[in-house]
């Protein structure tokens, strides 16, 4: 009986996530508010269904009663997030909230599977982070001088990154974090945000050549410090984000091609100069030739993904623990091993959908600063997803970055939630402006069609 339940749930989870993902794209076809709301409600139900079935398997396999308690705590938490946003920010994008909760639910499931204690720790951090970030959309709306602080952001960013590079503690060969009293803080996760704000603020003032040179120099300092700390993934994300922000801000495609070209040259020089870069490339080219050492991680990841195949081995049926740092950089491999490649593809599509919605907010924003902030954060998010999933599937060399909201790690999840909250703030700002325009127009007696969006 238990077996039937476990096997059935395995397939139902895949069907549910496939329908959920489809709805996430299909929603754009509807124009009527009520149709959209129906889709969003169905999505919530599917998310809770997946969460329920997964925890049922977790409970039946382990027999731990604690898991039931955690399950209910998480149901309350996810329901609270959805409800609180609807009450406090009725104009927020509900689809982004749904996806955010879905990613968190997936994270809860896979982390509980991998390590109960870590899952509890992460859950606590998520609750606190969510509480903090709930204020952010309001702050964004109230603080109207955020675009004046360009050099302040630059100072904070360069200062903190520099401090880590000098005094940080080393993990997996890179200097990334500060440790105080058992809490490890990874400043680069937060500098992502100040970096985007810095670039956006400075470019919203001027896009002349002199300004371009100054901003490029500031961005280069950020990137170089990251390279010096051996945080290759971070350096690459900052570099790509800057290059594309520069391109959009100046509307000059030569900057884009030139930037990407110089990035390629820099990568080649890095390959020649640094052994840790070469190791990554060797492991990427043919991991099985060097399976005992450099290629071990990626080989294990490929075994996990390949053995899991389309439908996955089922929760607790695989051995994801054989992949080093599985709960962070390799979380995607663990998900595919036990929940299947179809689930993995849906996960990628959810992230793509988020990326498109983020950029859409950049398109809608009237104000250059807000538009650039939305763009920068979209790029940070989208490119990081690409790097981590591309890395564990051996599409590109490993860079050692986490999957936002899904991977284990306090700094990572807090910074991701801040990014999501800022995006919501910008979205709400836009809705308010639209309404204001409507109001002015209707006040002046003109007849306009109501075009509120959710």
């Amino acid at each position: 009986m238990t077996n039937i339940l476990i096997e059935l749930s395995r397939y139902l989870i895949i069907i549910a996530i496939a329908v959920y993902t489809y709805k996430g794209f299909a929603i754009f076809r509807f124009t009527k508010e009520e149709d959209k709301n129906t889709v969003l409600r169905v999505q919530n139900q599917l998310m809770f269904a997946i969460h329920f079935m997964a925890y049922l398997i977790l409970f039946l396999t382990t027999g731990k009663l604690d898991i039931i308690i955690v399950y209910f705590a998480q149901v309350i938490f996810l329901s609270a997030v959805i409800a609180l946003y609807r009450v406090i920010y009725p104009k927020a994008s509900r689809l982004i909230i749904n996806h955010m909760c879905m990613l968190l639910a997936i994270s809860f499931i896979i982390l509980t599977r991998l390590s109960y204690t870590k899952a509890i720790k992460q859950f606590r951090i998520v609750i606190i982070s969510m509480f903090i970030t709930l204020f952010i959309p309001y702050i964004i709306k109230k603080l109207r001088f955020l675009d004046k602080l360009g050099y302040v952001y630059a100072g904070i960013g360069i200062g903190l990154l520099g401090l880590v590079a000098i005094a940080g503690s080393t993990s997996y060969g890179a200097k990334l974090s500060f440790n105080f009293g058992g809490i490890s803080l990874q400043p680069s996760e937060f500098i992502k945000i100040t970096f985007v704000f810095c670039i956006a603020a400075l470019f919203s003032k001027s896009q002349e050549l002199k300004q371009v040179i100054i901003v490029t120099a500031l961005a280069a300092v950020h990137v170089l410090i990251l390279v010096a700390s051996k945080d290759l993934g971070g350096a690459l994300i900052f570099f790509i984000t800057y290059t594309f922000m520069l391109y959009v801000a100046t509307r000059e495609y030569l900057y884009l091609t030139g930037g990407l070209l110089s990035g390629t040259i820099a990568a080649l020089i890095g390959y020649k100069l640094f052994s840790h870069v070469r190791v990554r490339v060797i492991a990427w080219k043919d991991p099985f030739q060097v399976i005992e050492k450099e290629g071990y991680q990626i080989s294990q990841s490929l075994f996990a993904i390949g053995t899991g195949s389309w439908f996955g081995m089922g929760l607790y049926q695989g051995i994801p623990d054989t992949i080093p740092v599985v709960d962070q950089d390799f979380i995607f491999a663990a998900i595919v091993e036990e929940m299947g490649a179809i689930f993995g593809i849906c996960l990628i599509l959810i992230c793509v959908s988020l990326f498109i919605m983020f950029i859409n907010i950049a398109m809608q924003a009237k104000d250059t600063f807000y538009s650039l902030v939305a763009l920068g954060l979209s790029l940070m998010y989208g490119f990081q997803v690409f790097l981590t999933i591309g890395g564990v599937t051996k599409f590109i060399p490993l860079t050692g970055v986490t999957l936002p909201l899904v991977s284990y790690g306090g700094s990572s999840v807090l910074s991701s939630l801040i990014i999501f909250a800022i995006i919501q703030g910008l979205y709400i700002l836009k809705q308010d402006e639209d309404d204001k325009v409507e109001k002015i127009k209707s006040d002046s007696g003109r007849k306009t069609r109501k075009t509120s969006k959710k």
Partner: protein
Amino acid sequence: MKKLNQILEERQEKHLKNKKESKNPNNRELSIVVYIFVGLFILLMGYFVYYNIAVSPNIINSSYNKRQDLFAKKVVRGEIISSDGKVLAQTSVSKDGTETREYPYNNMYAHVIGYATKGKAGLESLVNFNLLRSNAPLLERVIKEFRGVKNTGDNVITTLDSKIQETAYDALGSHDGAIVVMEADTGKILAMVSKPDYNPNNIDQLWDSLVAAENTQDSSLLNRATQGKYPPGSTFKILTLLEYIKENPNYKDYTYQCTGKIALEDSVINCYHNTVHGEVDLYHSFAKSCNSSFANIGSNLNINSLAKLCDNFLFNETLPYSMVYNKSSFTLTKDAKTYDVMQTMIGQGETLVSPLHMAMITQTIANNGVMMKPYLVDHTENYDGKTVKKFTPSAYGSIITEEEAMIMQDFMQGVVENGTASKLSGQSYSVAGKTGSAEFGNVKGQSHAWFVGFAPDEDSKIVVSIIVEEAGAGSEYAVPIAKKIFDAYYSNR
């Protein structure tokens, strides 16, 4: 994705119509950013799908993949079967669900089939994944999965021929050594014997003593057919002769006066048992395996060119073989001392080779210069007998020209007709080959008996490679074994 973009654009347009003032001047650039990144993600997902369909089936077969054993919880390990339908390994399930891996032929296939507990070896390791996958009818599998009953794993049909294996195993008798039998035109391995052996049925009980002896001379776990590193002895003269023919188009004019030994620069090489061969041409030098004549030939050869030839024949290289083996080595350089050169030319010296590799060299000559990749798995099928995956012969490459191969075939036939392998002459089949008596260690007179050969005139040619350790002359100990194998193979064809 396209549709989505379209929708986004439409929204955008509608939006612009409604409120002209809200037009963001950077929207063209932003669209380009979306296209680039969505393009990247589409490539990523395409690759991910491709990986799951085309790449992963090969990768997860790796013996490094610890996940294979997870399938043992859900699948009863399949059978390993000979090409003539004999079960070589099977899993029996007792009433209480305990599984036992059984090897009906006990020691006979010990090394080639290997074992499945205590780590894995042999075919049990190579096809582990195939044995643990079930390609039973889908509905049956799903029903069993839901009922929590184990599915039946696929069977692996090998290229091994039980009659040839049995003959070879018995013929080697109580000697240590190894035998490889393969098809010349396909590379299919028909038999692979290694002694000393062990009974894989008792592997769990034997394990500690087997491991204790693992690094000693008489290790039973070692598959001497592929891992044994032996001096080739006179079988190496095949390569010396080939090099001589390549360098000297007028090789037919060669003559040499053998006095039972040759002395060059203070170094002396003796013929086997100091036999005086008298005046010999190249044909008789090879047929009689005259060491003096070959040391003489070798002292004038271009050593770099010989080394190149050996490399082409995969000395010092990886072999196209998917199970455990040791590389053969040929280390002679042109700066070597005369004595070492002469020793190497007659197959002594530093050169080391495995019986499998010697079989591949012989196979190349028998197959007119084209080396085939040796293989052991013919196909896999589900328990119902439906073929799942078929393996076909594949060529490694052309090592020597067809003409060179034909000349070598003639020379090797001479060994049987007029030379050291005359015990094989006068049969219903004709044989070509080369004997060897490889001296080892520092004790004079002790030697391993070698024979490599094939039947050149038959429709289906088989190649044999035999080494009998510490037995004596190849003509006396290895050739009779070859005869038994050829007899068994050609008797009812």
